[in-house]
């Protein structure tokens, strides 16, 4: 029941918000917060259930082969926790900035939250596609929400490319159904072992490509930089921190359950894509002048690290990938919120214009420095630890090239984050010429945003140090075990 609530409560909130708006014309921030808290607690309850007693919930009592099953195990719990933290933070930032005003925004937000929880909990391939569609539509609209030309263009590109991705997922699902006659993932894990090799190739190519487009990995990343940089700060943080991670989950789940025993080439393809993503994303980020675009390309590169972890096709690799997913959520959300606030203060997003901030906003710059040190991979922060685990597991898979690519990526990312930091610290033209700053404006108080990014930066340090403790590693390796243990998943769903 808790699993259903995690999907239903946000969807209900999304449904109710327009009615509240119609009835009262104004929407109080308190109401939104209560709805948000309820949805997030439901997701956390589902995560708790999934973690301690993996659960299956059959919709309407139909058996798994004809009905829809919701499955909560450790992998989905980990991701539920991630989306709860991430979307909670984004909601708090949005509430601080907009108040209760834009009801459409919040309706879309809750729609997104519900569909994300749906993707994380569903055990049915077609149901996954349906939730993906809800998720994508909400995401397209949120990107275009500010209605500037830039945002509309980004939203359109996201729409077109996202639809192509969805098309491939749908094709893969249709081929699967035609070949086997079932849609439940656990039953498919058994059925796919006995279908012809060529059919399996077509299915795997369609599913992997569709999901890779949604994750925004390098050769098919085109929608990501525009979408992530044009949206408002809270949405950018949500896109980079949480939405991408849901696609990562879908890719992990589908690939591990369907192709771990049947088609090893899938994982080679994922590793290659990941390596390309690391190089391409970092090199593109190096050339950006717009700070949010730079962070968006950095996301492409970080997705590459995660894909390399997934491509190891081992429990250690999956655990490392999940750990990096968590870390990237913390680091990139923090960076986006900080960069967004600082560039709103200065009235520009060009890096060369973001000068003199060390004098005016020292604590924000300090937090940015910690977060970027973490994402570059300075020991003992969390980014370093998860990269090290990814390198370890890719070495365990017997290859050295992804590890060297990660090493090269570290240097390139150090280059561009240092560029941003040196711009922040440089005195700036305003103070030297004696003129007042170009945008005379009273600095706004952003205490909630600051509390969020500050605690994220602190968590970066804590998680990095915690990675040395055996208990913590146990937790993450059990997630990895769950991810690759197909038999346990099948047993859980079918009850055998």
């Amino acid at each position, binding site marked *: 029941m808790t699993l259903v609530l995690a999907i239903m409560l946000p969807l209900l909130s999304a449904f109710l918000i327009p009615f509240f708006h119609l009835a009262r014309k104004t929407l109080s921030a308190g109401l939104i917060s209560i709805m948000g808290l309820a949805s997030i607690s439901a997701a956390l309850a589902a995560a708790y259930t999934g973690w301690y007693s993996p659960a299956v919930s059959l919709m309407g009592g139909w058996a798994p082969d004809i009905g829809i099953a919701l499955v909560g195990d450790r992998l989905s719990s980990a991701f539920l926790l991630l989306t709860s933290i991430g979307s909670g933070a984004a909601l708090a930032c949005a509430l601080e900035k907009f108040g209760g005003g834009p009801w459409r925004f919040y309706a879309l937000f809750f729609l997104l939250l519900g569909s994300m929880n749906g993707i994380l909990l569903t055990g049915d391939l077609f149901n996954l596609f349906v939730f993906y569609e809800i998720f994508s539509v909400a995401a397209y609209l949120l990107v275009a929400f500010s209605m500037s030309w830039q945002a509309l263009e980004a939203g359109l590109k996201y729409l077109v490319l996202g639809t192509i991705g969805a098309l491939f997922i749908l094709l893969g699902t249709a081929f699967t159904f035609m070949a086997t006659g079932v849609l439940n993932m656990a039953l498919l894990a058994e059925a796919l072992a006995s279908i012809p090799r060529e059919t399996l190739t077509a299915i795997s190519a369609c599913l992997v490509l569709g999901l890779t487009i949604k994750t925004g990995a390098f050769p098919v990343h085109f929608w990501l930089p525009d979408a992530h940089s044009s949206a408002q700060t809270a949405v950018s943080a949500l896109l980079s921190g949480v939405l991408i991670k849901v696609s990562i989950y879908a890719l992990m789940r589908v690939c591990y359950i369907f192709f771990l025993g049947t088609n090893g080439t899938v994982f080679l393809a994922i590793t290659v894509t990941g390596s390309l993503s690391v190089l391409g994303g970092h090199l*593109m980020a190096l050339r950006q002048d717009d700070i949010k675009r730079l962070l968006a390309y950095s996301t492409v590169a970080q997705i590459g690290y995660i894909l390399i972890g997934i491509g190891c096709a081992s429990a250690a690799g999956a655990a490392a990938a999940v750990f990096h997913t968590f870390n990237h959520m913390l680091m990139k959300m923090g960076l986006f919120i900080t960069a967004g606030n600082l560039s709103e203060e200065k009235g520009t997003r060009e890096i060369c214009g973001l000068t003199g901030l060390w004098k005016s906003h020292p604590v924000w710059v300090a937090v940015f420095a910690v977060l970027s040190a973490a994402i570059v991979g300075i020991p003992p922060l969390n980014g370093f630890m998860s990269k090290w685990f990814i390198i370890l597991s890719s070495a365990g898979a017997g290859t050295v090239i992804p590890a060297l690519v990660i090493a090269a990526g570290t240097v390139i990312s150090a280059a561009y984050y240092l560029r941003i930091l040196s711009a922040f610290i440089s005195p700036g033209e305003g103070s030297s010429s004696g003129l007042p700053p170009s945008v005379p404006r009273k600095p706004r108080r952003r205490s909630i945003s600051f509390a969020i990014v500050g605690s994220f930066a602190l968590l970066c340090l804590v998680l990095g140090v915690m990675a040395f403790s055996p208990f913590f590693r146990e937790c993450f390796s059990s997630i990895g075990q769950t991810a690759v243990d197909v038999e346990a998943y099948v047993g859980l769903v079918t009850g055998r």
Partner: protein
Amino acid sequence: MMFDTAHELFRIDTFSMVMSALVVFMTVAVSIYSPGYCEERTTFRRAVFYGAPWLFCLFSCLGVVSGSWFMFTISVELSSLALFFIILLQDPKAARLYIFSQLLGAGFLLTGTALLGALTGATAIGPVPGDILWLFLTGLGFKAAFPVLHFWLPQVHGKAPTPASALLSGFAVKIGVFGIARLVSPDTGTVLPFLGSVMAIYGVGQALLQHDAKRLLAYHTVSQLGYIVTALGAGTSLGIAAGFFHTVAHALFKGLLFLSVGTLEKVYGTKDLDHLGGAARELPLTFSLFLVGALAISGFPGFSGYASKAMVKAALYEIPNPLWYWALQAAGVGTVISFCKVGYFAFIRERDPGLRPHREHMPGGRKDLMRNTGMALPAAATLTLGIFPGFFAGLGGLESNSLFGMKDLLPAAATFALGISLFWILRKWFGSGKHEIPDIDTLISKGSRLSAPVFSILQSMNCGLLRFYIVAVVAAGLALMFLM
């Protein structure tokens, strides 16, 4: 499997104790020297200037006593980060070059460590199997300035504030050497002496052509590291002990030399040998301390450099190939010429009449006192180790008297005679104009233009045209389908 616990957390033996003592000693000397050098205005910058060396000291100590390659790499990376901040105060470009090169080296080391863990199940510090040796040698080579991988060293040593240069040459590069010493196994026997000889000859050759005093000293660091690497390549316990002795000796006298050039830089406002001169009369104490360092690096009997080089050569007698021995002898002649050049041009001949010394830095002031006190420490240690090399000789199983035999004294005398006479013949040529030939660092900055096509391909991929994106995505799908 993420961290194995099969090895102890720390590995403490004579070598790591000596290295820790060395870094603490160097940091103390540099900290005494710094008040005579530091001219930072704000409290924050001063705090970095005085605090970063101690942070460096802390992480370096952790690095040399760590028991696994993983901890070693982390500590070394953090120690580089500490030096990065102090270099950043003076020259951001050099600081960036430094941290990028060190991060890349750490990446290679981490990759090697991960493979080591995958192959053997343990990452305890020590020799590694032959097929992943290249990763470790490359990673440590960035630190220890192997040929081609030394691209960062001349520039960073030349541009860094002098206390940082002294620590860089004195200890930061030695951590790389320390790692290589831990790696020594029969597999390293062929590659290390070759690399070491190349470094010894190439470093001294480049040093002879420099006119910036700190850059010249930086190339001598490459050259002296060559001695150490060659000695380690001998692979015997005598070779390793000799390498360590030269490591310690070089840290002390090269730190001393950098600090004395720093004094010239403060007093005259330049470190260019084309303009300097006459410092011996105005700064007699600095000159005598410089002389200690110069005689030690050139291998004059009674100074630490002589004893350590004699021990290195003793180690090389044990391996069959005489080529390495003669390469080091030739490098020794070059070293003598080079330090005759520094001594003559910076201290003895008449200087550029336009150059006026700054009064506040002249002898008698507090700044000069602090600087000379800081330099006196390594100078005293250099003399002590030169006269009583018994401890290090004992590590290699030698009597300290055996280092002062005729078969070592005669070549040293011949080296000095040849070096001084060659310098006297060539001194006009050294004094006239610039003779630098481009090193790998200028080639790299030229070569970065080669990356332009990569960027233009990437740029045109992200052209913003939706129809191109759609074609690219569908093409990627087809490619995936065919490749699977």
